[in-house]
């Protein structure tokens, strides 16, 4: 389908001689990989063709990343064969994969923020004892030219914008002459502009005859970027749409087809969530007009952790019953903002007011008792203690307080009774309130946290990426819970990198960029576009 341009200088000179577009660069045959208690890949057979962008589409946990980690040597399959350039091979390490010309850009950056771009690229490049700095500079210039981007070789990587970091990652994956490039959720950290630029880069790589595997859970992305789309569900390959399928149909038909493949019989039930991206165009602001603000941020600044941006001079006010969204690319100060409001991070300037009274100096517990709650996105990292019971986790923000503690002594009965009630009310699926939280699924851990934060009379709740990594049903339930709370007059701040989610939920959307407020957009027609513009405007 893509032209095989014989005159184009191939990017790589070390691969097998036959490099016609349309040839299979990689064949995965019957790949099976199981983790304790779950089959992540169940007998998957797949071909990556030269000159094609092959999208792997599926929900979180469908097995996309596992499959590609098998190909990149990070995981070893339990069964199945891998054929690269017509030869059956065994890929037992990332090094072997690179030798075979398979480069991967991981979902989480594999760049070392403290090293320069050049050092990052030279890492693992081999070639004797001494670092070949001159050779590396030349190689970078060459690859940057191919990609059509400009990269400063001596910049410290951590200081680059995320889009640029990703370009470095792609250069790194191609460094040793890869002919197969795997991208794992490459757009999750990018602005809309960055996504467009990525599409351009991929177009160029296709022309150079590379086979590109593109992992995504976003339906429209697969439809737009892919020459071929394979759909994974619960570890199995449930459908493949070739170039002809993709071209022959209208956008709507395509979406409907993919939804049917992804969700099968459940399609009807979840279709509204899956299609949010298409249908939602914002709604009229509906709450809290003309009332006194519940929560106010006045010129708030706070320092970031080592190497992270802080927040600078942020002023916002939240009306009772209002849902405010915080949009922005990850790492632009969202976490710092949430922690500053929640009381976890000291302010360096400014003031936080709740019902008109300053609460800048109050700690987490005092704010908690006022009704100011924070549902963190790091569920096991800080939101719960995995080794402790569901019951204890439900009261961890009230340690020492009656009725759960009396004179410092734990009142087990009281804690367990409350826990049972909350588990029931918030529909937490757990074997019992004494089960350890780590044994629950991500969705149920999220429900435990929601139960803890929304119990005991909340007034304003900060939700950080409340639906990240959850399955479609739980996403629905969580969003419903946020709306329901707002109906009862509980204000909310929803931080999310998923713009569609914000458009769906929020009355207003504030945009964070490099720790500063780029602007606030009222909900309504065209809101997504205006937010996107704000994100780009400051980030550039």
């Amino acid at each position, binding site marked *: 389908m893509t032209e095989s341009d014989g005159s184009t200088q191939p990017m790589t000179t070390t691969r097998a001689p036959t490099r016609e577009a349309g040839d299979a660069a990689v064949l995965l045959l019957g790949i099976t990989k199981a*983790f*304790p*208690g*779950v089959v*992540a890949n169940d007998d998957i057979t797949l071909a990556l063709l030269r000159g094609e962008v092959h999208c792997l589409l599926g929900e*979180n*946990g469908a*097995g996309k*990343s*596992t499959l590609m980690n098998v190909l990149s040597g990070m995981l070893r399959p339990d069964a199945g064969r891998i054929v690269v350039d017509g030869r059956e091979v065994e890929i037992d390490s990332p090094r072997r994969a690179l030798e075979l010309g398979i480069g991967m850009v991981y*979902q*989480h950056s594999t760049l070392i923020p403290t090293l320069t771009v050049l050092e990052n690229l030279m890492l693992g490049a081999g070639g004797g004892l001494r670092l070949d700095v001159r050779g590396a500079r030349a190689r970078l210039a060459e690859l940057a030219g191919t990609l059509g981007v400009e990269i400063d070789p001596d910049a410290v990587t951590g200081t680059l914008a995320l889009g640029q970091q990703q370009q470095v990652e792609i250069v790194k994956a191609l460094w040793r002459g890869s002919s197969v490039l795997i991208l794992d959720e490459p757009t999750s950290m990018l602005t809309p502009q960055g996504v467009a630029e990525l599409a351009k880069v991929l177009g160029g790589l296709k022309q150079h005859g590379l086979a590109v595997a593109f992992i995504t859970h976003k339906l429209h992305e697969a439809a737009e970027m892919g020459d071929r789309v394979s759909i994974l569900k619960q570890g199995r390959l449930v459908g493949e749409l070739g170039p002809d399928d993709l071209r022959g149909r209208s956008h709507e038909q395509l979406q409907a087809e993919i939804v049917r493949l992804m969700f099968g019989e459940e399609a009807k039930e979840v279709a509204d969530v899956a299609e949010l991206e298409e249908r939602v165009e914002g709604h009229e602001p509906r709450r809290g007009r003309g009332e006194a603000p519940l929560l106010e941020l006045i010129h708030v600044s706070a320092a970031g952790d080592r190497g992270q941006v802080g927040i600078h001079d942020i002023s916002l006010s939240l009306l009772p019953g209002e849902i405010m969204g915080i949009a922005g690319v990850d790492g632009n100060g969202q976490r710092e903002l949430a922690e500053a409001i929640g*009381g*976890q991070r000291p302010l360096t300037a400014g003031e936080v007011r709740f019902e008109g009274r300053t609460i800048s100096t109050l*700690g*987490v*517990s005092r704010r*908690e008792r006022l009704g100011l709650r*924070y549902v*963190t996105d*790091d*569920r*096991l*990292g*800080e*939101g*719960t*203690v*995995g*080794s*402790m019971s569901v019951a*204890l986790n439900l009261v*961890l*923000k009230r*340690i*020492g307080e009656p009725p759960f*503690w009396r004179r*410092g*002594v*734990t009142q087990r009965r009281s804690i367990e009774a409350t826990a049972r009630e909350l588990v029931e009310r918030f529909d937490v699926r757990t074997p019992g309130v004494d*089960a*350890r939280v*780590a*044994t*629950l*699924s*991500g969705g149920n851990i999220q429900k435990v946290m929601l139960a803890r934060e929304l119990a005991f009379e909340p007034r304003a709740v900060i939700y950080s990426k409340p639906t*990240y*990594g959850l399955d479609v049903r739980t996403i629905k339930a969580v969003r419903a819970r946020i709306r329901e709370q707002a109906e009862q007059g509980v204000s909310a701040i929803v931080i999310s990198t998923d713009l569609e989610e914000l458009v769906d939920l929020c009355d207003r959307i504030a945009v964070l960029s490099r720790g500063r407020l780029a602007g606030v957009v009222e909900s309504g027609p065209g809101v997504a576009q205006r937010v996107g513009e704000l994100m780009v405007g400051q980030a550039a």
Partner: protein
Amino acid sequence: MSDVAATAEHTVAAGRAGRFAALGDAGIRSVGPIVLALVAGAAILLALGRNPIEFYGDIVEGGITRTTGLQDSVTRMAPLLLIAAALVVVFRANIWNLGIDGQFLLAAAMVAGVGRDLDRALPNGLALGLLWLLAAAVGAVWTIVPAFLKARYQVNEIITTLMMTFIGINVANLFIKGPFRDFESTNVPQTSVLPVEQRLPDIPGTSIHVGIVVALVACVLVHFVMTRTAFGLRLNVLGANPRAATHFGLSVPRLVMVSFAVSGAVIGLAGAAEILGVWGYVRADWNPAFGLIVVPLVFLARLNAIAVIPFVALLAVLSIGGDLAARRADLPNDFLLVLVGLILLFMAVTEYLGRRRALGASYLTEGLVAALRRRKRP
């Protein structure tokens, strides 16, 4: 994906076996390292040309069957138990207070230094009570610097507490050779001696001083605090996940300072027990070096202040009996150090196998286990 895998791993572990099997696992994990260390120790003795069966036989004789053996061993348990209880507090919070010897020795030196004068000035009971308090205060004070460095700058407390031990030993010596020196006594500088009848009374019918009762009470108390109170829960949360502690509004620096101080205080009590119960004075350069040998036991008992009691009993027998055995075998009495090192090594290995085979609960604090197991979420 990793989400599912991690969860599955835990589910498998949880549903694995009944209570009985779990007890068996716990037995293997706790007793296994000791047995293995004793076997490896025997091999070392053989290599040194000593008869390990005789050596271990001498340990049993010296620590249990000899006339005063058992009583000596129980007496030795008092300081060891107090140290173990103190370590449970900090280890639960995932804080490595390894400055035990410094805290112990300074407290002991202070008690011995002011003991006789205080006892002359005040009624015996009151003086003893004040001396216990003094020891606790000294032990706690000696943790302030490492605790501050950790709380404020996150400086690794293993190193700083060890440094403070080296300093503490020398400071204790300075006191003993200086203000506390009793010039009427021998050539070797030492403090004045607290008369036997002014020391801690023995349990009637034995030569075991009541310090062992204090130590047992301390163990029970520590166990209660760590499992049934808000303070204990705070320390457990800190130990399991310091970031979560911040999220839940706990003041991590304050918890670090307080748990350090509590453990130092209890270790100070151990010093008081040893002086007020056994010696009555401190000589320059005296250092029983109880500290690091207690560490592995606390792990073997899975940071449980009650479960640690039998392990400490074993250690006390090894310690008391080991002196006799070493003397008869014409060896320095540092065989115990080798044994303890080996126990730690084998414990680490069983921990690895345990993780592999879901064998019982881990010895390590939850924070460490989490660091090993955590599949980080974005």
